[in-house]
C-alpha cells in the first residue's frame, strides 16, 4: 500500500469508527450500576502512570472486592489519537487520565461527565490544577497530579564559574549562562527549544514571568503585547549570543547532556528529579532546582493530568469512588511515593518528603503561582502559531515584534 493510501486509510478509519460510533452512542446510556454492586471498571492511563496505576488498582480491589479495576496503560505518543478514536466510537473507558491540553477538545466533543462538585471540592486543589479540568467554567476533570517547570542548574559548575546563588531574575540567568560557557567551559549556557512542536512550553516561563499571555481571560488574542515581545526578545537573545543550541532534534533528551556538563541549565518538570537521580547518579548533589527567574514575577506553566469519567460509562458511581480514592489526601501522598508525581491536592503536601524536601518546596512555591493554558479545543493550533513565531526569531529570520504580530493576526482568526 502506498503512503497516500495508508494515510488516507488512517484518516478514514476514524470516519468508519464514527459511523459505528453513532449507533454505539445510541444504544448505551442504560441504567447505571450502583457503586456497591459487583462490577469491573476500565481505566486508561498514560506513560509511567499507566504502569504504576496497575499496582494501586490491585490494592483498591483488595479493599473493595466488588469493584475490579482494569487498567490499560497507553503510550503518550498515541494517547491523543486513541482517545479521539475511542470518543468517536463511543468506546471510551469508564475513567481516563487526560492532559490539561486535551480537556477543551473532549469537552467540545461532549463525551465527558461533569465533575460532581459535592464530592470534589475546588478549594482542596491547586488553582492551576483545578482550572485545567475546567472548560467554560464547568469542571470535567478532577486534578490527579500537577506539574510545573522550574530551573535545573548545575551547582558545581556554577561554583567553577564564580556564582554561588541561583539566578532570580532574567539578567542573573543570562549572566550565569554566559559564565558557565566562558568560565566553566560548558558547550551551552541554557537548554531551551529553538523550534518545532511544543516549543511554546519552554517559552511560557518567559512569557508568563513578563506578564504576557497568548489568549487572555476574555478569550482575546494578546500575543503581540509589549510584555510578550519583551519575553520573546529575551528568549531569542540566548540563540543570538550562542548560549543556546539553534538545532535541537525532535525527541532530544536533555538529561544526558546535563549529566555530562554540556548543558548546565534547563527548564524541567518534577519527573526530571527521578530521571537525574536514576540516570545520572554521578552528579548527585551537584545540581539544584530554583524557581523560574523572574521578570515582573516568577510564573511558570502548569501542567499535569486530570481524571475524567466518560459520559457513556455505566459505572459512574464506582468510577467516582475510585477517583476519590486516588485524589484524597492519603491516595495522593501514596501516589507521590510511587511515581514522584506532585499531588494536586494541597493537603497531601503537609507531611513526609513533600513537607520537608527543599527541592519539592521549590515546586510547591512555583505551583502556587503557575498558570495553566486556557482550555480551548483548538489550543494545539493556536500554540503552533506561537511555535512558528519563536522559530522565526531563534533562526534569526524576524524580529520578535514582527513574528508576534503575524502570530497575533493568525490567532485572532482562531479564537472566534
Amino acid at each position, binding site marked *: *500500500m*502506498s*503512503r*497516500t*493510501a495508508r*494515510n*488516507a*486509510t488512517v*484518516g*478514514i*478509519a*476514524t*470516519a*468508519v469508527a*464514527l*459511523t459505528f*460510533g*453513532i449507533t454505539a*452512542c445510541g444504544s448505551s446510556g442504560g441504567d447505571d450500576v450502583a457503586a456497591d454492586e459487583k462490577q469491573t471498571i476500565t481505566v486508561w492511563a498514560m506513560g509511567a502512570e499507566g504502569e504504576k496505576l496497575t499496582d494501586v488498582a490491585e490494592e483498591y480491589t483488595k479493599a473493595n472486592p466488588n469493584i475490579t479495576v482494569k487498567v490499560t496503560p497507553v503510550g503518550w505518543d498515541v494517547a491523543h*489519537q486513541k482517545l*479521539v478514536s475511542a*470518543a*468517536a466510537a463511543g468506546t471510551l473507558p469508564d475513567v481516563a487520565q487526560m492532559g490539561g491540553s486535551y480537556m477543551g*477538545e473532549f469537552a*467540545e*466533543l*461532549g*463525551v465527558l461527565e461533569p465533575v460532581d462538585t459535592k464530592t470534589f471540592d475546588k478549594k482542596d486543589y491547586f488553582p492551576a490544577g483545578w482550572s485545567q479540568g475546567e472548560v467554560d467554567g464547568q469542571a470535567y476533570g478532577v486534578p490527579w497530579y500537577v506539574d510545573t517547570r522550574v530551573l535545573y542548574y548545575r551547582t558545581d559548575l556554577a561554583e567553577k564559574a564564580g556564582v554561588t546563588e541561583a539566578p532570580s531574575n532574567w539578567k542573573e540567568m543570562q549572566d550565569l549562562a554566559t559564565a558557565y560557557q566562558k568560565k566553566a567551559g560548558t*558547550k551551552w549556557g541554557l537548554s531551551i527549544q*529553538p*523550534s*518545532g*512542536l511544543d516549543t511554546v512550553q519552554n517559552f511560557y516561563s518567559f512569557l508568563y514571568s513578563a506578564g504576557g499571555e497568548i489568549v487572555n481571560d476574555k478569550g482575546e488574542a494578546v500575543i503581540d503585547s509589549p510584555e510578550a515581545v519583551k519575553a520573546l526578545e529575551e528568549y531569542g537573545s540566548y540563540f543570538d549570543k550562542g548560549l543556546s543550541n*539553534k*538545532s*535541537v*532534534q*525532535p525527541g532530544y533528551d536533555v538529561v544526558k547532556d546535563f549529566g555530562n556538563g554540556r548543558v548546565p541549565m534547563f527548564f524541567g518538570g518534577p519527573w526530571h528529579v527521578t530521571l537525574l537521580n536514576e540516570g545520572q547518579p554521578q552528579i548527585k548533589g551537584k545540581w539544584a532546582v530554583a524557581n523560574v527567574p523572574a521578570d515582573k514575577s516568577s510564573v511558570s506553566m502548569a501542567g499535569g493530568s486530570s481524571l475524567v469519567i466518560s459520559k457513556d460509562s455505566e459505572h459512574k458511581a464506582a468510577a467516582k469512588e475510585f477517583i476519590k480514592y486516588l485524589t484524597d489526601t492519603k491516595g495522593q501522598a501514596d501516589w507521590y511515593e510511587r511515581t514522584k508525581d506532585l499531588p494536586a491536592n494541597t493537603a497531601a503536601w503537609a507531611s513526609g518528603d513533600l513537607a520537608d524536601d527543599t527541592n519539592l518546596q521549590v515546586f510547591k512555591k512555583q505551583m502556587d503561582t503557575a498558570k495553566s493554558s486556557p482550555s480551548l*479545543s*483548538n489550543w*494545539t*493550533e493556536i500554540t*503552533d502559531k506561537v511555535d*512558528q513565531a519563536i*522559530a*522565526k526569531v531563534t*533562526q534569526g*529570520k524576524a524580529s520578535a515584534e514582527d513574528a508576534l504580530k503575524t502570530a497575533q493576526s493568525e490567532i485572532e482568526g482562531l479564537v472566534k
Partner: protein
Amino acid sequence: MRTMTSRAAESAKAQAGPGASTSPAGGPAGRGGGRKRSMGVQNLAGWLFSTPFLVLFLVFMAFPIIATLVMSFTDFGLRNVTHPLDAEFIGFDNYVKLFGDEKFLKSLFNTAYFVVVGVPLTIGLGLVVAVLLNNGIDRARTFFRVGFYAPVVTTIVAVAVVWRFVLDPSDGLIAGLFSEVGLTAPDFLGSETLAMPSMIAMAVWRNLGTVMVLFIAGLQAIPTEVREAARLDGAGAWQEFKGITVPLLRPTLLYATVITTIGYLNVFEEPFVMTQGGPSDSTLTVSLNMYREGFNFFHMGYASAMAYVLFVVIMGITVLQLRLLKDNTK
C-alpha cells in the same frame, strides 16, 4: 514503498524477462466442457474465497477513499468526530483555500524538490550499484547485495537513530571527519538550506536497495547470448552497457522510476522523525502537512482536500512518465 518490494521484484521480472510467461491467471481454455454445469458452483466458490479480501478492501480501501473525497467537500472538524453528519458541505472551498495557503504551497514546492533531486539520484545510483554487483564483484556479492538492501528493511526509528548520529553537528560522524581536517561541520538538520538535502540523502540511502533489486532482476533476465554476440562483434564494456543493457532494461527502468516517484511524492517518514518539517517548514512535505492538519489540528475536511490534490498530482505525473518513457521503447 517498502511493502511493495516483493511484488515489485516479481513484476519487474515478468516485465523484463523476454522469456517470462504471461500472467499465471490463465485463460478459460483449461476448463473445457464441464464449464456450463459447474459454473454456478464455481462462481459461488470464487465469491466465497474472495469474500475476506473483498470485505477488507471495501472497509479499509474503497470506503475510506470515497469518504475522504466526500469529506474534502465539507468542513469536517473536531466536533464532527462524534457527530459526523453535522459536517457542512462547503463545495470547493477547501480546494480554493489550499491554493492560497502559503504553507501548502511551500510543502508542494518541498515535495517537488524532493522528487526532482531524489528520483534521479535513487535510480542512477541504484543502476550503478546493480550493474557493479551483477558484473564487477564476484566474491562477496551476496554480502554487498544484503548490505545495500538492509536499509530497506530497517525500521525508520532505527534509521533515525543512525542518521542523527551521522548528522549531529557537534559529535556526529560527519562532524568528526570535518574536525579531522580542521573544519567545522555544518548543522545539517538545523539549516534551512541543508535540511532538505539531508532528507534526500537519507531517502536515497533507504530506497536504493529496492531499486537495486529491481535492476538486478532485470539485468539477470538479459540473455547471455545477446551479450556474447555483442562481445564477438567487438563491443567494449561501455558500448555493451549503452547498446544492450540500457535498452533491454528499459521496462524495469520505467517501473522503478514510476514507483520511486510515487513513493517520494508521498514522503512522510523522514521529515516526521528527523525534523518535524523544520526548520521554518523547510522540510515540510505535503504528506506531513496533511498529517498535521488532519491529526494535530483536526481539519479533516481540509486535510482530505490535500490528499486529493496530492492524488491528482501523483496520477498526472505517473501518466506522464508512462507516456514519455514508454513511447521511447518502441
